[in-house]
Every structure is written in structure tokens, then in C-alpha cells.
């Protein structure tokens, strides 16, 4: 099945067409420079010393022997690092720092691998020898690596302060004032009772006290009046992001500014993050990241350890490269939090969900509370549209590596918890699996989550039903369904899953210059992490201005090069947010071109049109080329060439624009266009699997993802995102996991062959994608982001297909490997340990 975009999509000159991205030749020739590829004269190296214990306090450090070694330049501990800083919102409100948050180095390591100090020396060999000479006296503290264990009475806590996160409820906003910023999260001790644990039998998740909850509708009545109520527990895995590029960073100082070569998803947004970590003015921070080797949510604004070479560099007065090894990346490289979920879901006999009662336990690691538990509930409420729902959540600390968002954070886990139930319900009620998804699917401005301010929020649009219809036809669902399920030692099954997530933000800036050479020089603050949105978004600029793409030059990846304020490249915001920014900037250019033409050629601005690299009078008459207009813009000055910067743009953009002043026609604008609803995207995944019943091994024969992402901007890049993120989800189904020894609280699986990210051999034999192509009505170009929803769809289409092949009750957690299948088939019941973490 070739990839295709449904004819729904309106025809554009450039949008929806493939093109060669400007970064590609450098990539294929090996010339593209990632953080570790930079060399600076006099560069020194740094390596980290990691905690051997899951939880300890450093009593003393004796580094004298190391410092006495020739070639050793400095040692950095947490005492040399700035304290956690408060953050400030755009509205000027202070978000107080989480005082328990990760600082990069620590004297109270809270997981094995937590960096204690960094050694800087002339080369890494010397760093290693020096580290082995350092003696650290640790006081071992109690540890726990299983979120359920720490909730048992009398069990250890991961932090001295406690074991669960609470976010105190902020006071309601005063009339006329914006809502107050979220208060700093706090850690407290919470233990469930023996009775809570005793009440749950047969692998069901105990439901003790939750720390957080919301609800809408009469969920109790919904469950009571249902024809079928399923009560199921499922566990999703902790999965390291395992970006192929580790978070290596190199830094040096010049004229009071720090130049940081780091691995980050976002370019512009990394500047304020680094500035906050270093307690510096953002104008003194230059971030260089032209190419980033993957992020998946773990490098949204790089990570805090990137300040270590920066601080060391200042200390030793030379550039410092801190290479992060794969094992170190396992520790500091972040991971998706696992969720233990228990769901009671009511169905009518025709398959409509009546109510959901959801209880989720999120293993948040040792440092930050994660939003995954809450987002799991919100996305579930959108995807399956339960008319009534209760959500209860608890975010538990463990002495395991820090967690952070990973592609479809929370949304993924919500889908993973819900899909097995939907699948089981379809089997029990005798309803087709596609049909049960369609019955419960959102449509139009569908609601999600609990009411805020008396009204439930809603999305901008949803065309998932269309996606299911397209997929059902393209996948030949009904034909496959009619086929035999068993032959020889093999069983086959088909599965479908739907998935959704946030797909766009608003409010960022566009910035470019039309120079007298007639070319458009676009400044892109978007990170280049492989999605190609760094150039894709600017296709809109060319589209709107009516110029060939070859006339567009994109500058990216270096905040010393005058980039605009841009959304973080995370959470699939970019294609939505930055096509909007490109759109408004292009219209700013258009307006200015029209005004210049009117000034020079007479008439009113609105008499002119822009196209064919010219600005021309509608219905014939005078015209001028963009090159001429650019020259005129410089002569005119003022707003035209950037001598006057509009008030509305972010100060980051304004500063960049000032450096571009006088080079041509300066287009600059902030996206203030209205949007009714929250932008979300959707994917329906279809899969067929074949299981070998004698070995438990299974192959994915076929996979199709149909995406509702609004307008397609760049089909090949979109296909990469849809199938790439689908594979990321499939990885969660077929192998990715953590393994911990609970006695010592230490990880056993730190290598790729232990954590099992999928190889090309795990990829489905056939993969294809399609796009619904219906533009989102709330954004001018109609494009939404796609990085997230394929993950849940990929994972659960596979697992639903597996249930279809093997029946219910073979597995109750992901990933599902040969051992689980074989042991359960042998015993005739689920044999894996349902609730133990990290097995």
C-alpha cells in the first residue's frame, strides 16, 4: 500500500508536496555537525562520576589524589552550580522552583547513576584515571524502585521528604486577574493500608488513597446502568528515550557570553532554559544546535547537565567537551514514566461506553512530578468520549532515573490502558473492533477532561471517524477478519487502535528578510531534530508569498544568528504553531510589499497583489520585483526594513530583528490569530500479527496508520513521523523495558540489547500510512502536529491483534515478549507478574 493523502486536502502549489530539505546533503555526506562533532582549540574534556547507590548522602569527597594528577584541571560538584531558579511566565508571574528538582550534580544522589561530580582534564583517559582516584564517603539511605512497594505500610521512601508528589491547590484568581501560576509541587509521605492491598486480588491494582482527582458526569450511574462492566488492570512500561545521540555538550566563553553546543530539540527555547539554569541574562547565552540526534521529549530544551561543561569552562578558562556515554545516557537521558492503571468501564450492549472510572499510579522517578497520569485521563476522555468519568491519580517517587515527557506523554499510557478493555468488550459483546472504536470516537468540537470554569474544554476538530473508515477500507479489514486464525503452529490476529494527542500551540513569532537579491531569508528558531519542521513550516512562507522554494534560504540552529521566538519543538506543537507564525509573517511581508508598491506605483495598498516573485497591481498596471521592493524597503526604513520593530512580538524576536535591520524588507509578526478549541491530532492504527504458538515469537505482518493531522505540509516528512512514531509505540509493545534488581535498587538493563529498542527486524514486514487530509478549521493552513498520536496507535494495534490471535488473558502489561506468551499459553492463564515494576 503506497502512502497517500486523501483527496480531501485542498491543492497547494508547495504544501502537500515533497521537496529536498536544506539539511539533507550535509546529513548524507557526514558533514552535518552534532554537538560532539565540534572542536575548539585548547578544548578540554569532562567526565561524570555517578552514584553507585540508589539513594545516599555524600558525607565527604576526597579528590586530592585526582587533582594531583598531571592533566587534571578541575573538579565540579553541585556546590559549584547555581541553585534551582524560579521561572517566569510570559505574564511576568513567577513559577517557584521545585527545590527537589534535578540540578545536574548532587550531594544526595537519588538513583544509581545520579551524577555526583565532573572531572575536567586534558583527555578522557586522564578523566577516567582521575575518577578512579576519587574517594567518596556515602551514607546509604533507604531506597525503593517499585512504586507499589513504597505505598505499602512501613516501606521506604525514595526521598527523605516522602514518596508522593502533591501540588497544593492555588488560591482562585481574583476577579479580573489572570489565574495564578501553579504552586511549587511538594513531596509528602503517603502509605496505603494493608486493607487496601488485601482488597485487590488476582493481579488487580490496589486502589488506596489518590492524591489527585477529577470527574464529570454521573459516572456511578453510568457504571450501574451499563450492560457490561469490565474491571481491568494494565501496566505500561518505563522506556528510556535512548536518543541515538547522547546529550553531549561543549561550551566556551567569550566576552561574557557562553557559547553552548548542545543536543536540544528546540533552538530558541533552549536559551531561556540555559539562562535560568545558569542564572544569566538570556542575551548572554548562545545555543548552537544545527543537528540533534533525536529527542522524543527528552531534550525539549536540552537537559540540565549541559550546564556542567559551561560552568567548568568558566572555571578552567578553556572550552570543555563533556561526552556522555551510552550508559550515562541511560541514567541522565530520561525515560517515559510507567503507569499502573486500573479501569472500570461500562458499556451498553451495542458497545457505547457509559462511564469510565480510572485509577492511575504513575512512577515519576526521583525528581519531578510528571503530568502523564493526568494527561492519560484527559486524552482517554477525548479519544473514547465517555459521557461520564472519574479520574484518580497518584504520582509516586522511586529511586530510578528521572522521567520526562516522551512522545505522546500520558496520552500514550491512557490509550494503552483503555485499548485492551475496548478490545475485550468488542469480543464479549460480539461487536466489530473497528465499529466499537467508531461508536466511541470523537467528532467535531469534542470535549475532553473535566470542566474548567463551568465548561468542559473542547478540541478544534476531530476526523478520526473518517480515518477509521479510510483505514478499514485500505487495510481490507473485513477480508482479513474473515480469514482463518490458526494453521499449523501459527495463529494470526488483526487489531485496530485509535489514539490522540495535543497537536499544536499558538502565539509565536515569524521573522524573515526579503533581500535585494530577491531571495527570502527565513530565520528559523525551530530545532532540527529530524522532523524537518525546521524547514517544512517555512514552506508556508513561500506558498503565501508565491515564490519558488529555491528562493528561500533558511537560517537555523544558532541563536547568535538572529532567530525569532519559537515554540518548543516538543509535544507536536511546531507544525501548527510555526505555520501560523510563518503565515502571519508572510502576510506582514505581503502588507509591506503592497504598501511599498502603492507608495511607488500609486493607488492604495489593497490594489496590489503579491505573486510570481513580484508585487503587481490587480487587473494589470505597474509592478515591481521583490528585489526592487527590498531595495525600496531599505530606503524607506521604519517598519519596512526593521528600524521600527512592532510592539507585539517577543523581546527575543525583537532583539534578533534589530540585528537584521536595514538588510531588506523585514517581515516580522506574532501569531495572534484566534483559535476556538484545543488543537489535537488523531491516528487510527491497523495491524496484523502472526504468532508461533510453540515459541511465543510473533511477527507483525502488516501495519497501516491513518492520520488525521489536518493539512499535510511535507508528505515524506509526515510519513517519517507517522511510521517512525508508530514504530516507537510498537517498540513499547514488542520489547522496550527497564529491569531493576529490587534488593539493591540497581538497574540490570542498561544496554540496547537489554532495553530492546526495536531493530529493523522488528519493523512490520509491510508498513504504510495515509492522511485524512481534512484541514483543521481553526488554523489558516489547517496543519496540526503528528509526533504523538501514532505512538499509542502503533503499540495498541499490535497488542489488540495479539489478543485477537491468542484470546484474552495472555498478557496484562506491555511489552509482550515470547516468554509471556509461552508461559501463559502453557498455563492457560496470565503467568507474568502483573504488578511488580521493572521485570
Amino acid at each position: 500500500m503506497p502512502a497517500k493523502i486523501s483527496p480531501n486536502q485542498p491543492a497547494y502549489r508547495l504544501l502537500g508536496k515533497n521537496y529536498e530539505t536544506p539539511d539533507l546533503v550535509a546529513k548524507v555526506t557526514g558533514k552535518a555537525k552534532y554537538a560532539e562533532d565540534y572542536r575548539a582549540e585548547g578544548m578540554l574534556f569532562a567526565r561524570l562520576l555517578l552514584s553507585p547507590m540508589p539513594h545516599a548522602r555524600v558525607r565527604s569527597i576526597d579528590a586530592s589524589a585526582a587533582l594531583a594528577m598531571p592533566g587534571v584541571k578541575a573538579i565540579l560538584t553541585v556546590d559549584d552550580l547555581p541553585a534551582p531558579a524560579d521561572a517566569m511566565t510570559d505574564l511576568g508571574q513567577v513559577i517557584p522552583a521545585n527545590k527537589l528538582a534535578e540540578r545536574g550534580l548532587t550531594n544526595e544522589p537519588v538513583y544509581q547513576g545520579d551524577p555526583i561530580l565532573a572531572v575536567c582534564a586534558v583527555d578522557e583517559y586522564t578523566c577516567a584515571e582521575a575518577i578512579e582516584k576519587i574517594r567518596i564517603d556515602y551514607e546509604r539511605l533507604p531506597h525503593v524502585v517499585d512504586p507499589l512497594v513504597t505505598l505499602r505500610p512501613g516501606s521506604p521512601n525514595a526521598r527523605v521528604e516522602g514518596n508522593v508528589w502533591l501540588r497544593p491547590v492555588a488560591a482562585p484568581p481574583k476577579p479580573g486577574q489572570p489565574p495564578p501560576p501553579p504552586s511549587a509541587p511538594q513531596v509528602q509521605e503517603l502509605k496505603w493500608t494493608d486493607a487496601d492491598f488485601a482488597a485487590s486480588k488476582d493481579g488487580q491494582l490496589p486502589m488506596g488513597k489518590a492524591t489527585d482527582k477529577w470527574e464529570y458526569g454521573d459516572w456511578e450511574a453510568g457504571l450501574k446502568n451499563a450492560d457490561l462492566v469490565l474491571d481491568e488492570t494494565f501496566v505500561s512500561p518505563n522506556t528510556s528515550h535512548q536518543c541515538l545521540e547522547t546529550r553531549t555538550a561543549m561550551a566556551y566563553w567569550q566576552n561574557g557570553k557562553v557559547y553552548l553546543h548542545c543536543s536540544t530539540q528546540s533552538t530558541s527555547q533552549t536559551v531561556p532554559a540555559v539562562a535560568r539554569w545558569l542564572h544569566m541574562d538570556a542575551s548572554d547565552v548562545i545555543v548552537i544546535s544545527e543537528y540533534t540526534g533525536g529527542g522524543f521529549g527528552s531534550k525539549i530544551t536540552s537537559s540540565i547537565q549541559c550546564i556542567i561543561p559551561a560552568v567548568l569552562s568558566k572555571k578552567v578558562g578553556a572550552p570543555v567537551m563533556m561526552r556522555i556515554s551510552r550508559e550515562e545516557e541511560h541514567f541522565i537521558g530520561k525515560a517515559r514514566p510507567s503507569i499502573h492503571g486500573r479501569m472500570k468501564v461500562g458499556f451498553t450492549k451495542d458497545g457505547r461506553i457509559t462511564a469510565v472510572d480510572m485509577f492511575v499510579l504513575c512512577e515519576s522517578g526521583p525528581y519531578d512530578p510528571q503530568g502523564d497520569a493526568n494527561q492519560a485521563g484527559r486524552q482517554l476522555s477525548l479519544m473514547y468520549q465517555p459521557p461520564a468519568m472519574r479520574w484518580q491519580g497518584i504520582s509516586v517517587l522511586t529511586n530510578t532515573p528521572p522521567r520526562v515527557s516522551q512522545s505522546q506523554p500520558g496520552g500514550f499510557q491512557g490509550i494503552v490502558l483503555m485499548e485492551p478493555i475496548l478490545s475485550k468488550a468488542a469480543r464479549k459483546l460480539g461487536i466489530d473492533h473497528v465499529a466499537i472504536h467508531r461508536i466511541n470516537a470523537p467528532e467535531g468540537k469534542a470535549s475532553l477532561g473535566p470542566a474548567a470554569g463551568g465548561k468542559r474544554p473542547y478540541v478544534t476538530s476531530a476526523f478520526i471517524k473518517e480515518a477509521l473508515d479510510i483505514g478499514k477500507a485500505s487495510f481490507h479489514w473485513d477480508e482479513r477478519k474473515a480469514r482463518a486464525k490458526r494453521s499449523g503452529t501459527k495463529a494470526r490476529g488483526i487489531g485496530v487502535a485509535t489514539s490522540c494527542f495535543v497537536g499544536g500551540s499558538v502565539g509565536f513569532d515569524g521573522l524573515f528578510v526579503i533581500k535585494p537579491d530577491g531571495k527570502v531569508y527565513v530565520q528559523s528558531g525551530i530545532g532540527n531534530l529530524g522532523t524537518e519542521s525546521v524547514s517544512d513550516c517555512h514552506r508556508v512562507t513561500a506558498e503565501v508569498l508565491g515564490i519558488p522554494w529555491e528562493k528561500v534560504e533558511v537560517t537555523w540552529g544558532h541563536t547568535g544568528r538572529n532567530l525569532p521566538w519559537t515554540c518548543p519543538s516538543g509535544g507536536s506543537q511546531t507544525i501548527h504553531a510555526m505555520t501560523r507564525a510563518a503565515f502571519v509573517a508572510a502576510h506582514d511581508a505581503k502588507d509591506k510589499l503592497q504598501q511599498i508598491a502603492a507608495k511607488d506605483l500609486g493607488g492604495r495598498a489593497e490594489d496590489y497583489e503579491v505573486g510570481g516573485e513580484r508585487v503587481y497591481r490587480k487587473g494589470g498596471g505597474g509592478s515591481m520585483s521583490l528585489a526592487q521592493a527590498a531595495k525600496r524597503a531599505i530606503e524607506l526604513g521604519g517598519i519596512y526594513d526593521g528600524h521600527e520593530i512592532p510592539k507585539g512580538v517577543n523581546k527575543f524576536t525583537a532583539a534578533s530583528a534589530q540585528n537584521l535591520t536595514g538588510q531588506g524588507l523585514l517581515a516580522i509578526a506574532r501569531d495572534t490569530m484566534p483559535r476556538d478549541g484545543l488543537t489535537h491530532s488523531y491516528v487510527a492504527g491497523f495491524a496484523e500479527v502472526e504468532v508461533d504458538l510453540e515459541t511465543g515469537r510473533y511477527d507483525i505482518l502488516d501495519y497501516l496508520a491513518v492520520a488525521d493531522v489536518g493539512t499535510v505540509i511535507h508528505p515524506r516528512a509526515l510519513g517519517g513521523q507517522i511510521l517512525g512514531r508508530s514504530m516507537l509505540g510498537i517498540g513499547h509493545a514488542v520489547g522496550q523495558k527497564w529491569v531493576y534488581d529490587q534488593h539493591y535498587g540497581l538497574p540490570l538493563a542498561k544496554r540496547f540489547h537489554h532495553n530492546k529498542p526495536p531493530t529493523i527486524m522488528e519493523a512490520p514486514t509491510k508498513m504504510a500510512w495515509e492522511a485524512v487530509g481534512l484541514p483543521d478549521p481553526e488554523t489558516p493552513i489547517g496543519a496540526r502536529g503528528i509526533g504523538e498520536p501514532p505512538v499509542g496507535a502503533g503499540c495498541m494495534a499490535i497488542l489488540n491483534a495479539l489478543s485477537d490471535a491468542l484470546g484474552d488473558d495472555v498478557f496484562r502489561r506491555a511489552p509482550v515478549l515470547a516468554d509471556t506468551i509461552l508461559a501463559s499459553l502453557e498455563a492457560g492463564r496470565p503467568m507474568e507478574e502483573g504488578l511488580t515494576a521493572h521485570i
Partner: protein
Amino acid sequence: MGLVEFATSPWGQTVPIHIAFYLIWVAAIGGLAFLIVHAIYVQFFAKKEEFAPSAYPAQAAANVPAKVHRHTLASRLFHWVMSVAMFALLITAFLPRVGFPFDWVTYHWIAGLVLTASIVFHIIHASFWLDFWAIWPDSIDIEDAKRRWSRATGKSAPPPRKFAKYPMENKVYHLAILLSGLSVTLTGLFMMKRVRTPLFTRNPYIFGDMTWGLMYVLHGLAGVGLIGLIMAHVYFALRPEKFAITKSMVFGSVDREHYLEHHDPERWAPTSK
């Protein structure tokens, strides 16, 4: 070269794990050296043993049976069971360490259990059926030991008295074997929790790494100590002047002549049974 080998625990702490295995050779060579020195001493330098006259009436000596009962059948059985177990333990423990690898663990723990059982039997038996205190050195033994030492080193001292049932060396040896044997069996019993046996679930986590390390060191020290002790024991058992005692461990009794020469009937009343 330390006496103990250390390892890094999973938490990065330095903990003892066992004795340094060269101590096996130290014990063996030390034991051997002792035998040689002792044999030479006895052969060339030792004075004839002299005892203080006994208060025991001479005519009563006639009543001493030809065979003076020394060890009950139960005691002798215990001794030989224990010795077989002990040899099995030493062989299974140390041969693989000195270049003769074989599947030793199962034999070792089974032998260990036999040894333990025999010791438990012995303690109960000795406490309730035997003269419990007969084997413990008393004040006379200590006084006589001082006398012997003085005389051996050329100082003047009254001759020591004849022995009770057990000569002083015997008692001291028992004490040494008791200490090392109890150390090795108690630690060994706990260590069985660390290997797979049909008896209980393997669980090395009943103690912390440090406690275990010390336990292994104690087990090892007692074990190599036993090498020396057993060597000495076998040596003495084979020495002609002690052979009567060795025989008594087989047949249960000593000859009247031996009895009268070495033992004081006041301190050990002769019986034929």
C-alpha cells in the same frame, strides 16, 4: 598480601568476601612444619616424661582391669562419623582451590550437615550421658602445664601429675577443634542459604554484604585452621607413644599399662565398661 580478599559490592562499597586462598598453603605448610619440628624435638631433645607419684594406693593398681574403658561406642561412632565428614569437608573445600576442580558443592554441604548433626549429637550426648567436664582443662591441668613448660625450658619445677581421663594436649586440642568446628559449622549452616539445596529457598539476602563477608572470612579462617589441626591430630594419632589412645578410639579402651603410666586413677576412676 592481606589475609582477606575484598570485593566491591553492587553499591560500590568495599566488603570482605573470603580469606585469601594462599592461607590454605600457609596452613598446610605450617601444619607440616609443626609436625617436623615436633618429631625432631621428641626424637632428639625431649626428656623422658616424668610424673609426680600418685596418691593412688599401689595395691589398688592390681584392681585396674586389663582394658580400661575410655570411650563409649556412641562416642567412638561420633568421632569417626565426624572425622569422615571433616575429611570430606576439607577435601571438597580445598582440593578445587588448589588445582583439582570437581563438582564439590553438594558433597560439601551434605558433609557439612553430617558434621553438624554429629556435633549436635555430641553436645547432647556429652551433656547428659558423659562426664561433661572431663574434657575441659581444670586448674590442675593448668598448673601441670606450667610445670611442664618450666621443666622443658630447664627451670626447676615439681614434676606434673598424671592425667585424668584426657591429657592436657587432648583437652586443648578439643577446645581448638570446638572453636573452629563451631565457627565453621555455624557459618556453614547460614551459607547453605546461599546455595541451592532441597532444604530451603535460596536467599542470600538474609544478611547484608558486610555480615556475609565476615561470615565467609570466619568460615575460611576456621577452615584453613582445621587443615593444621587435622594434620596435627592425625600426626599425634599415629605417634607410637600416643597410639594407645588412637586404639582406644577404635576399641573403646586402653591397656592397663598405658593407663597406669599416664593416668591418675584418682582423677579418672578405671572401669572395664
